[in-house]
């Protein structure tokens, strides 16, 4: 366990890339059984793997699976339902871009918008607060995302918000869901690549207890192709050696303790609470709820959210065939889904994973990803 594990890697050093690929092949072969399955939990990692064609060069027996790493995708249907119900009740909603098209049980915020509801797409919570300050009408920020966006919500709340500004928190916290995925029946995951920028906030030390409990190695990785390759080599070497530890291969951004200033603000505003992640499971401590002291800006406490109408609308038959949950749990790939690329495409997505630019299905669709190109 060290911060020195990662050497500086040049972005496009072909020699280094070839060397890492060879080391990866050797490490996978040395494990002595197949397949070796590892999981990463970050949409940006999947984008990099797909966009740079890394998977085509992975050894045949190495399965690199994207887990619940798309913050938009894991927002559960009932959470979207709350935002949709509020919007239909005439409350103005602001949220991050991809959330607008994510389906709830039977409708998305885009559907509500088409019916006349006011839904603002914002890139930061500050833009929603600025809009709220321009009038006296209520504005609800549908707050989604992992610790990287949750700390921004926390900082904005602590900096002060106008009385007509409310937060509907669907923020999620990554470390607990890794435990759930590990314990899932049928899970084949033998090691994790942790997301570099989420770990910038939490620090890599947070994974030590997880590693001790599950005896599964974790490597923190950056986002450049060589960062990911180097992290995979280290991860598979640990699997080969039956060594469970945390290695930090992204020391330029991640320290053991993480960003304590951001963590302090996060826990001044939020408390961990159990909650469902879409299609995956109930995740103990996986959701972030506003603390009681912020009850005055908690949309769930301020508004009577009328979900009754949603009970009148049946989910679409197609959505019942969606396997996003199994994909995010690492049990299936988009190639296993009968809707993928047929009924479910970026323009008319059925499941959340095809909506978000960080969703596995969307990324595979955009970059033409295959399960393993070396098998084609």
């Amino acid at each position: 366990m060290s911060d020195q594990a990662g050497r500086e890697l040049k972005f496009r050093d072909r020699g280094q890339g070839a060397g890492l690929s060879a080391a990866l092949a050797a490490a996978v072969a040395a494990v002595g059984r197949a397949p070796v399955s590892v999981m990463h939990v970050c949409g940006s990692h999947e984008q990099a793997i797909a966009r740079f064609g890394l998977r085509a060069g992975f050894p045949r027996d190495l399965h690199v699976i994207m887990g619940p790493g798309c913050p938009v995708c894991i927002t559960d249907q009932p959470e979207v339902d709350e935002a949709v119900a509020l919007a239909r009740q005439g409350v103005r909603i602001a949220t991050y871009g991809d959330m607008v098209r994510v389906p709830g049980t039977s409708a998305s915020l885009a559907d509500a918008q088409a019916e006349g509801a006011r839904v603002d797409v914002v890139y930061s919570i500050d833009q929603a607060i600025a809009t709220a300050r321009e009038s006296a009408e209520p504005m609800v920020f549908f707050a989604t995302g992992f610790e990287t966006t949750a700390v921004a919500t926390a900082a904005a709340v602590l900096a002060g918000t106008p009385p007509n500004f409310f937060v509907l928190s669907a923020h999620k916290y990554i470390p607990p869901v890794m435990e759930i995925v590990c314990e899932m029946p049928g899970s084949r995951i033998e090691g994790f690549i942790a997301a570099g920028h989420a770990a910038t906030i939490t620090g890599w030390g947070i994974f030590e207890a997880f590693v001790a409990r599950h005896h599964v190695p974790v490597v923190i990785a950056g986002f450049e192709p060589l960062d990911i390759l180097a992290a995979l080599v280290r991860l598979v070497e640990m699997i080969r050696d039956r060594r469970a530890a945390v290695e930090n291969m992204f020391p330029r951004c991640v320290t053991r303790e993480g960003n304590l200033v951001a963590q302090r603000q996060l826990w001044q505003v939020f408390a961990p609470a159990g909650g469902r992640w879409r299609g995956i499971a109930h995740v103990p401590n996986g959701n972030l709820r506003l603390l009681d002291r912020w009850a005055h800006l908690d949309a769930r406490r301020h508004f009577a959210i009328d979900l009754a109408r949603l009970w009148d609308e049946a989910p679409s038959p197609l959505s019942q065939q969606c396997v996003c949950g199994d994909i995010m749990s690492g049990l299936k790939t988009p190639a296993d889904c009968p809707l993928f690329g047929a009924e479910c495409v970026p323009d008319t997505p059925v499941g959340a994973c095809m909506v978000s630019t960080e969703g596995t299905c969307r990324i595979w669709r955009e970059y033409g990803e295959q399960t393993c190109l070396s098998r084609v």
Partner: protein
Amino acid sequence: MCLGVPGFVVEVDGNMALVDFFGAYRHVRLELVDQPVAPGDYILNHVGYAIRRIPEEDIEGTLEMYRQLLREADDDLMAGDVRAELKATGERRDV
């Protein structure tokens, strides 16, 4: 939303920094960054907040990936996410 985008700090005014992101001047909030930020530093911006001051020795390596991404078209997913990060920062106001 996980990628963030690095930028060069031009000015600091309290909890707000004016940052040069590859030629675009934008405002970024500093409440979350855990080290002092001064003009001349590089920071990593995420949804309008600096979450990390980039160590000097890592600046060039960090910037190179973004330079390449920003040459890509908008329909590239990673390039699109980086551009969205820029839109999360505040418009430059006249000082």
